[in-house]
């Protein structure tokens, strides 16, 4: 079977510098791949190229075997969930309004939407009654759970998560990490998850893609990066992260 997400020579330069050098990559289906690297290395750019929020200068991002282009993007996006750092919930809608937005536009009836939302709230460990609230009266962790439910409503096979836990305090973060991992495992989704935190990467990753200044330095299981680094920077990055982790834990 083809990979669910594949990059073929995808490149994108920004006028002010930065972006992604021509990249060819194929992500393991049904697994969680963590995009790792220092700030500004192009992790978000890569995700945006996958869901078509950015157009490549060259090459093609293929999702479900289809190149992501202007005309194909809207339909493809309904098959991939996307969650960003602060959740991106619409403030004018309640949690339920957010969650129901796309399904109701697609013509689902209310009962079906509620049923699906209930199942996903269970999975995301979100009390369903919180869906009646507006985002402004939810905590950061609750908002991320609602955003996750929203992304999963149409049962996409692919999830793109751009630092979904970045804005949370460590306690909530650890809790949500555990819940998310269980949810991914239960759903067997293909997940691309961006983080610059090595602890989080080791928690989630089946595989890791390490980026630096718009280039992929290494792609493989985290152990492979530790044991057979493809570049001196890989070791430097990992050990810098570890010492940070160590200091934090001490």
């Amino acid at each position, binding site marked *: 079977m083809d990979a669910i997400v594949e990059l073929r020579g995808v490149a994108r330069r920004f006028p002010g510098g930065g972006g992604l050098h021509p990249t060819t990559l194929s992500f393991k289906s049904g697994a969680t791949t963590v995009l790792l690297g220092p700030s500004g290395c192009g992790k978000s750019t890569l995700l945006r190229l996958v*869901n078509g*929020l950015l157009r490549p200068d060259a090459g093609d991002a293929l999702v479900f075997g289809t190149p992501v282009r202007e005309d194909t993007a*809207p*339909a*493809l*996006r*309904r*098959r991939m969930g*996307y969650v*960003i750092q*602060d959740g*991106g*919930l*619409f*403030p*004018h*809608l*309640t949690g339920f309004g957010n969650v129901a*937005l*796309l399904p109701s*536009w697609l013509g689902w009836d209310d009962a079906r939407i509620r049923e699906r939302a209930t199942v996903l709230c269970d999975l995301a460990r979100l009390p369903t009654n919180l869906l009646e609230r*507006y*985002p*402004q009266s939810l905590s950061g962790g609750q908002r991320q759970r609602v955003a996750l439910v*929203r992304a999963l409503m149409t049962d996409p096979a692919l999830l793109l998560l751009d630092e979904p836990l970045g804005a949370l305090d460590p306690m909530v973060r650890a809790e949500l990490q555990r819940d998310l991992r269980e949810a991914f495992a239960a759903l067997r989704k293909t997940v691309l998850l961006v983080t610059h935190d090595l602890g989080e990467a080791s928690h989630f990753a089946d595989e890791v893609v390490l980026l630096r200044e718009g280039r992929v330095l290494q792609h493989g299981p985290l152990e492979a990066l530790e044991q057979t680094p493809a570049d001196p920077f890989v070791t430097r990055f990992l050990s810098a992260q570890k010492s940070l982790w160590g200091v934090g834990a001490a």
Partner: protein
Amino acid sequence: MKRLALTLAFTLTACHAGPVRVGSKNFTEGVLLGEVATQVCGAAGEHVEHRRQLGGTAVLWRALRAGSIDAYAEYTGTITAEIVRGADPADLPALRRALSAQGIAMTAPLGFENTFALGVPEGLAAARGLATITDLRAHPDLTLALSHEFIGRADGWPGLRSAYGLAPRDVRGMDHDLAYRALASGAAHVTDLYSTDAEIASNHLRALRDDRHYFPDYRAVILYRADLAARSPACARALDALAGRIDAPTMIAMNAAVRVSRRTESDVAAEFLSTRLRAGATAAEPSRIARIAARTWEHLAMVLSSLLAAIACAVPLGVFAARRPRVGSLVLGAAGVLQTIPSLALLVLLIPLLGIGVGPAVAALFLYSLLPVVQNTVTGLRGIAPSLRESAEALGLPPRAKLLRVELPLAMPSILAGVRTAAVISVGTATLGALVGAGGYGQPIMTGIRLDSTATILEGAVPAAVLALVTQAVFGWLERRLVPRGLRDG
């Protein structure tokens, strides 16, 4: 948009069918003559409407040419100065030929002359020894309060000044009726007036003699469309029959009956018809409540139809402008330019296109309402956080759903604020609609200024103020209804 189109269509077709329409200029004598003309046509069995105090010569003449009105009272001197330029006002056959070339007929003179004169308070005139206009040359310290029309027209102040070599230090343009008040209070000393003005006697003024015979012949006539003779022969005959029936004392008495005795024009005209022409005419005056109700309806209809049309155009324009910044700045620029056109000028510009009445008023209010709504739509849409815009996009919502379910609701507070601004501006500006015969609260305000009647002014001003407050309240309520709860504080 549909409402506007309907209004326009109505105005245009109304020009060519339906009742005979008499127009009148924006001063008492003009309204009285309009009322007389209306009532003689009515007495002749015709269905007639009187569109009162539409404005000055330019407005009335254009309305007559365009067919929005069928007749109005004019003066020969004005015709040669403003309409058939350069003709001799004394040569009536030549005038008649020139007018008929434009499809307009002219009655024989009605019998009185209303020429310009300069008036000075009697006491001041005695103290300074003023009897003729020439005498004014020795008193450049006197302040002149002149009507805008007199200052603007070639045969008015500019010609008079050079003919007499006058060089007063202070000349101000003022509403004609306000000028009398300025004279009474001593804030000004000289004003232009008409030789049949009731105020000459009631305000104890002395009309200075035109010793150089500068002012031309200003005999009153009625102009009517040549096609009226075919459409309503009875009416055309009745107008022609007014020739020679109104002499100067009669006209001054009628003016005084309105301005000094505070009787209505229709009442005074009806009395003239029954005593001088032996024609029966009725002048039913509606009660104050009925009048205010009718004005309220006219005012609201103008504001609402223009506002709805503006929303229907401006929100899509705003959406478009927000997406294409270059087109957007063009659109905003154009709407901004419209905003800078003074309302009076805009109304006059619209008359040749839309005739008189509700059409130009609604069109002007519509044009003024565009900018605030377009601008706030653009501001609201551009103000949406990029992360929210991306979320909507990434969700896979089609463009329409994205606009209707996410972008417009998020921009709603800003859009509503724009509509509220437009509505409040419209409620105020719509009072000017009375200048083009659209009615509304401006009608009693204008009549009140003309008649120096505070009660009549308040009959328009108080409801207008109340309507502005009600508008604010309605929008407060609308904001609670339409702005999603998640976007409000608390």
